[in-house]
């Protein structure tokens, strides 16, 4: 029950062509979205802060491709990937990042607070560790209402040290909640390496302390993530309680856009060249013949077009009006 294991690529499972195209599309959308935001942010047109998920796509998509309409996730400040993986509208997301009235949150939230409860996305969160307690709540609701829904809390290596995260893991075990805790260990909490800030060798080692199984996964390997997540989600759905999954990978960009990243070595170059999740996915599915390069390029083209559309529409969209400042503080005051 409390083992930590390294997951290898799965064998024996046959996903459909449609499924493979879907997950590839999703990862590609995240990648192109983030690359584009990186480029656009540099022009100075995007307000505030953005925290890019590029490099980590396999985690969001590997987990969320196991979820359905009954399920809820909570994310972090680095939330674009999770939003896209849960099907939040990409055009609305881009508009939100640009602070436009047509954005997912009507321009009131911004990059760090994009949410869509209708898609089971309880929001990116500006507070490190803000999500796990909320996920205990949505899991509790699902349990008491008997919906069979599972709730997934994404947090980073930084968030794994926050008291809220630790309390939530304990509570989820004590209440036997249908929850999954996903620690996305990209090696850094801002500038501080996770090797230094996490006292144990692995974040997943803490699982035993909270009475749940802990699993370590190569976060660049979509199929490994998918398999581990599938097991954890099934366990939760079947009333077996929570699991802690630790993804090990790296982020391609800084903590936020504008971060000079002087605290890093050259791991990003290496990762992009040798470990990249999209590259590995593509190599694998074409090798087995499940998909062709042409299939993948077709998706790439559609995604490129979608991102162009999103940016063009965002730049043209209206800003919120003065009256919008005061709306939606309460349902009714």
């Amino acid at each position, binding site marked *: 029950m409390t083992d930590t294991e390294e997951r290898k690529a799965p064998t024996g499972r046959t996903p459909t062509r449609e499924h493979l195209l879907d997950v590839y599309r999703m990862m590609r959308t995240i990648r192109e979205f983030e690359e584009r935001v990186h480029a656009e942010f540099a022009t100075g047109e995007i307000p505030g802060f953005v925290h890019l998920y590029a490099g980590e796509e396999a985690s969001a998509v590997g987990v969320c491709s196991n979820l359905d309409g009954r399920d809820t996730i909570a994310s972090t400040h680095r939330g674009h990937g999770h939003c896209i993986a849960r099907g939040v509208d990409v055009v609305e997301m881009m508009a939100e990042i640009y602070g436009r009235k047509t954005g997912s949150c009507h321009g009131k939230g911004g990059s760090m*607070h994009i*949410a869509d409860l209708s898609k089971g996305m309880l929001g990116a969160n500006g507070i490190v560790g803000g999500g*796990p307690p909320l996920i205990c709540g*949505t899991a509790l*609701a699902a349990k008491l209402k008997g919906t069979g829904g599972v709730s997934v809390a994404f947090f980073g290596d930084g968030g794994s040290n926050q*008291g809220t995260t630790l309390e939530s893991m*304990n509570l989820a075990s004590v209440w036997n909640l249908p929850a999954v805790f996903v620690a996305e260990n990209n090696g850094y909490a801002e500038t501080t390496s996770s090797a230094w800030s996490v006292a144990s060798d692995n974040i997943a080692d803490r699982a035993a302390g909270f009475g749940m199984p802990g699993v370590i996964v190569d976060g660049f390997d979509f199929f490994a993530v998918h398999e581990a997540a599938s097991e954890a989600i099934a366990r939760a759905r079947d009333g077996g309680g929570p699991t802690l999954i630790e993804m090990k990978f790296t982020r391609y960009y800084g903590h936020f856009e504008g971060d000079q990243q002087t605290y890093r070595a050259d791991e990003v170059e290496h990762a992009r060249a040798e470990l990249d999740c999209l590259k590995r996915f593509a190599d694998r599915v074409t090798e087995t013949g499940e998909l062709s390069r042409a299939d993948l390029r077709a998706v790439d083209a559609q995604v490129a077009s979608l991102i162009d559309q999103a940016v063009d529409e965002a730049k043209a969209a209206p800003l919120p009006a003065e009256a919008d400042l005061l709306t939606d503080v309460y*349902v009714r005051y």
Partner: protein
Amino acid sequence: MARNITYREALNEALAQEMERDESVVVMGEDNAGGAGSPGEDDAWGGVLGVTKGLYHKFPGRVLDTPISESAFIGAAIGAATAGLRPVAELMFVDFMGVCFDQIYNQAAKFRYMFGGKAVTPVVIRTMYGAGLRAAAQHSQCLYSLFTHIPGLKVVMPATPYDAKGLMIQAIRDNDPVMFFEHKALYDLTGPVPEESYTLPFGEANVVREGGDVTIVTLGRMVHTSLEAAGRLGADGVQCEVIDLRTTSPLDEDTVLDSVEGTGRLVVVDESHPRCSVAADISALAVRKAFGALQAPVEMVTAPHTPVPFSSALEDLYIPDAQRIVNAVKAVTGWTR
């Protein structure tokens, strides 16, 4: 039929009637039943001062004890509220807000606004406040002004059993996050309470005593202390109007201003510390919006700018008493330029 029950019983009745009416209402908190996993009695406490007693057996599976993990379970209550439950979570002493405030003021309070109107968070967080039980500095504070300051929260503090039941039922039915403040010294107070369910609106202050000479604006336990002072002053021929705010967010400005327009003199009585207090807030309101009517400066009667002391000798000096209110009223009635 209204019969005399205690403030505690009125709250228990409100919870029970709402849990009966709406199965999405659930209760959670430390020892809200009591005895979780322990070998002895279930529902051992029903909350540290017994407010939730009996609900555990009456509504199986809907009263949840928690570990001592405020940020996790208050956050869970908040998350559950976004997902279709109507949780009533207990923050046992408001003094503990420090360990879970983020979930309340950064998450619950802000979801609706940050998500562009696309979230509804109908959570009630009940909490005990106030001095007088010699519970010392970390178990006796008021702190409601900190929550009143936060857009997106509603803040409620009933002074009587009748108000407690009506405001609690309103809080549970309200679709915004509500901080529900219960003064620990009021639990045994009795008063007439109808058996039937009823609601009291938020943002409606209660004029508990009419009078034309001075306006006393107050809240929570200080309503009773203010009435005591008003009784003494009445015998001396000074008629005080005593206004119980009931809720500080939303705030009934009109009732306060109407009264000050009539009396021209304002004393605000607030058990909390003076800086950035509700007393300061009401004083500013009067100065900004009823300046022309004021005949004297506004007087604030509050605790001092100190933590709550332990020794009864000191705590009794800390808490505003009727004499201090009388003195403040005399100051505003006797004031000349």
